[in-house]
C-alpha cells in the first residue's frame, strides 16, 4: 500500500520528470476545466467537453496535415489553434442551437455529440486523414512547423491556458457578458424579465465553452501526440467536470484543481508501472476528491446562512 502511494507521489511530484508528466496532464484538464466552469456558471450543463475536444483535435489535424502543410510556424501554429477552437465551438454551438430553438436539453445533446465526435475521428483516421503509409489508423504526423513550442516536454499550451484562466475570471466577473451569464445561471426566469435572453446566453456560452474544449484538443495533438488517433483523450472532458466542480466554477481556482487532477493522472501511470496497482485506483481517488468537494460546497452553502445576521423567515 505504502509502496503504491509512494509511487503515486514520486510519479507526480517526486522529480523533474514527474513534474513534467504532471504538467503535461494538467494542460488539457485546465483548458477543458475552464470550458466546463464557464458553461456551468451560465447554467448550461455542458457534458460534451470530451466530444468538443475531439472535434477540435480533428479540425486541427485537418489544418496541420492536409490544408496548410507547407506553411511556416508563425502561421501554422495559430491556424491549428484556431481550427481547434472552431471545431469545438461548432460542436458546442450545435448543442446551443438545439437548446435555443428547440428546447433540447444540452445534457442529452452534448453527451450524444460525444459519440458523434469520437465516431467522426474514427472515420477520419480510417479514411481521408489516415497516414500516407496506410498502415495504422492514425493521421500523418504533424509537420514540425505545426507543433507548439515546447520547453522540454511541457508545451506552450499550458502557458496559454494559464492566461485563459485569468482572462475568463475577468470575463465572468468583470464584463457585462459575464454578468448576464451569471444572472441566467442563477435565475433564468428573473433574467428573462430583466431583458436578458437565456436562449441567447445559452447559445453563446455553449459555443464559447466548446471553443475552449476544442482548443484543448488542438493543444493535445499539436503539443503532445503530434498526430491524431483513436483514444486520444481518455476521458479528459469528463474529468474536466470534476476539475470545474472542485474549483467551485471559479476560473482561477481551476488552475490548482487541474494541477491536482493532473498529478493524480501522472501519478497513476507511475503507480501502475512501478507498484503494479491498477490505474482504476486513481479513479477511486478522483471520486473521493469529488465527493469531498461536493461535501465542502454544501457546507459552504449553509455557512453564510447560519452565520448571517438572521435567517430570513416567514418568507
Amino acid at each position, binding site marked *: 500500500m505504502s509502496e503504491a502511494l509512494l509511487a503515486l507521489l514520486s510519479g507526480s511530484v517526486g522529480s523533474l520528470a514527474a513534474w513534467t508528466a504532471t504538467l503535461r496532464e494538467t494542460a488539457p484538464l485546465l483548458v477543458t476545466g475552464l470550458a466546463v466552469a464557464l458553461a456551468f456558471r451560465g447554467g448550461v450543463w455542458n457534458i460534451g467537453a470530451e466530444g468538443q475536444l475531439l472535434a477540435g483535435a480533428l479540425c486541427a489535424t485537418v489544418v496541420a496535415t492536409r490544408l496548410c502543410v507547407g506553411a511556416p510556424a508563425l502561421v501554422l501554429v495559430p491556424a491549428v489553434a484556431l481550427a481547434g477552437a472552431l471545431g469545438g465551438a461548432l460542436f458546442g454551438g450545435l448543442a446551443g442551437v438545439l437548446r435555443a430553438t428547440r428546447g433540447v436539453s444540452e445534457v442529452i445533446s452534448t453527451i450524444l455529440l460525444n459519440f458523434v465526435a469520437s465516431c467522426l475521428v474514427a472515420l477520419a483516421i480510417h479514411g481521408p486523414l489516415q497516414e500516407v503509409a496506410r498502415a495504422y489508423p492514425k493521421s500523418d504526423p504533424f509537420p514540425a512547423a505545426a507543433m507548439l513550442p515546447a520547453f522540454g516536454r511541457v508545451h506552450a499550451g499550458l502557458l496559454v491556458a494559464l492566461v485563459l484562466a485569468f482572462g475568463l475570471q475577468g470575463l465572468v466577473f468583470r*464584463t457585462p457578458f459575464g*454578468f448576464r451569464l451569471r444572472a441566467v445561471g*442563477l435565475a433564468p426566469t428573473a*433574467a428573462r*424579465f430583466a431583458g436578458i435572453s437565456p436562449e441567447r446566453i445559452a447559445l453563446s456560452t455553449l459555443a464559447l465553452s466548446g471553443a475552449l474544449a476544442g482548443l484543448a484538443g488542438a493543444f493535445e495533438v499539436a503539443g503532445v501526440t503530434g498526430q491524431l488517433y483513436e483514444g486520444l483523450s481518455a476521458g479528459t472532458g469528463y474529468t474536466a467536470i470534476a476539475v470545474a466542480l472542485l474549483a467551485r466554477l471559479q476560473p482561477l481556482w481551476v488552475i490548482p484543481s487541474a494541477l491536482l487532477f493532473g498529478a493524480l493522472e501522472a501519478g497513476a501511470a507511475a503507480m501502475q508501472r512501478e507498484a503494479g496497482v491498477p490505474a482504476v485506483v486513481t479513479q477511486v481517488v478522483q471520486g473521493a476528491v469529488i465527493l469531498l468537494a461536493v461535501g465542502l460546497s454544501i457546507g459552504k452553502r449553509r455557512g453564510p*446562512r447560519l452565520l448571517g445576521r*438572521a435567517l430570513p423567515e416567514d418568507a
Partner: protein
Amino acid sequence: MPRVLRARLQGISKAFVPGVPVLDGVSLDVAEGEVLALLGENGAGKSTLMNVLSGLVKPDAGVLELAGEPVDLAHWGPRAAQGHGVGMVHQQSALVPALTVAENLRFGDPAAGLWFRPRAERRVAAALSRRFELEVPVDRRVEELSPGQRQRAEILRALGRGARLLILDEPTAVLTPNEATALFGAVRRLRGAGCAVIFISHKLGEVEAVADRVTILRRGRVVASVAARELDAHELGRLMLGRDLPPLARRAAAPRVATPQPALAIRGLSTAGASEASRLRGLDLEVFGAEIVGLVGIDGNGQRELEEVLAGVRRPSAGEVVVAGRRVALHPRALRRAGLAHLSGDRESAGLVRGMTLAQNFILKGSWDDRRFFRHGRIDHAAAWRATRAAALRFGIVPPDPERDISSLSGGNAQKLAVARELDGDPLVLVAVNPTRGLDVGSARFVHEQLLARRAAGGAVLLISTELDEVIALADRLVALVRGELRATPPGADRAAIGAILLGGGGA
C-alpha cells in the same frame, strides 16, 4: 388516536445566531374547538414558533405541553409531533403533483402498510373528506387541482395522519378571494369537529373573519393575546407594527392633468395562453397620467399573460402597446427605455436574482441603455454601489448594504429594492402586478404609498392584483379581466358586486 386537549408553549426561546434571538420567551396556548390567529410582520418569529411546535426546530429553552403533559423536548421532532396529533400545512405544497389525492394521503404515512391498495386508499380518503366536509376530488392528480383544492388536500393529509392541532402557515397567500372564503368555512367546520387550529397570517381582515383569539408577535415576543372580537383592525395593525398606521392619504393626490393622450394604451391585444381561459382576446385598455387603473380578476383569467406582454417576455399574436403615443417593441429593455416599468410581487417575475448582490440586482434591469453602470464593455461597480446605496437609504432597505446577497434580505426588503429599481428614473408608466404579495403590513403600506406617490407625480399606474381590497383602496378606476376579456365595473362597486362580475355573472 391521541387527542390534543390543549397545547401550551411556555417561555420558548430560540436563536439561530447567538445573541440574536428569533424567539424570546414566547408563551402561547390553544385549546380544542378554538381558532387562534398568529399575527406578526415578516421576521416576527411566527414560522419559527410553529416549526418548534411541529418539531422542525428545537428550541433553546422553554416548555411545551400537549394534552396537559410536558413533552420531552430532547426527543421532539416531526415524527413525535405527528404522534401527538400536531399537523402543519406549510406554504409550499408538500404534495406529489403526479399522484392522486388518495395516493398522496397514503404516501409517506408511517401507519400505512407495505402494500398499496388503491380501492381502500380511495375509500379512506373519501371518508375523511366527507367527515371533515373538505371537498376534494380524491381520484384526481394533484397537479390538476386548483390551489384551493390542493390546500384542502394538504389539510386532509394532516388530518389523516391523526392531526387534531392544525397549523396553517399563511394559507390564503395562494388563494383567490372566493377560495379564501371557502377555506374560512372549512376552518370553522374543523373547529366544530373539535380540532384546534393555529392560523398564521399577516392580513387583518382574515383574522376578523375566522379567529376566536389573536396572538400577536413582534420581534420574537408576544405583544398581545386577546379575543378577536375585542380588537379592531386599526388596533391590530398598531400592535403588529409597534406604531400607528395612519390611513392612506389617497385623495390628497394632485388633480388630474388634462392629458391629450393616454400614457399607456393597449390596443387589440391577443395572445395564446396557458389555458383556454387565460388567452387574451383583443384587449383594449388606456391608462392616463396621474391615474391608477386597477385590474382585478381571478388567477388564470389572463393576468399572467398580460403581465408577460407588458414585461416584454411574451409575444402577442395580435395588437400593440403604445406608451406616450409611440408604439413600443415588446422587449424588456425597449419597454423600460420607453418609460414603462414593471413591478411584480413574484421574485422571479420581478427580475430579482438570488445569489447576486443588491447592487448587481439594481443594475440588472435596463442596464444596457443605462450608461451609468455599463461603459466600454465594463461594469462600473463604483457607480452601481453608489446608486444602490442611495436607493437603499431612500427606500429604507435594511440593511442598506449594496454588497449583500439579495437572498439574505426579508421579502419586504427585497421587494423594496425592486420598487427602488423600477421607480429609478421616474417611469411614465408603472405596471404593478400583485405588488404586495407575501409582504407584511408595513412593507405593503410602503409599496402602496409608492404607487400613490407615482400617481401624485403624474405617472400612470396599472395595478394588476388579485387582492380585491388593495385595488379598491388604491385605484381611481376599476376594470375586471374575465376569461381574457375586460369588463367595466360600475363606479363605487363593492366587493360583492365585483366578485359577481369576476365570476362572470354580472357586469357589462
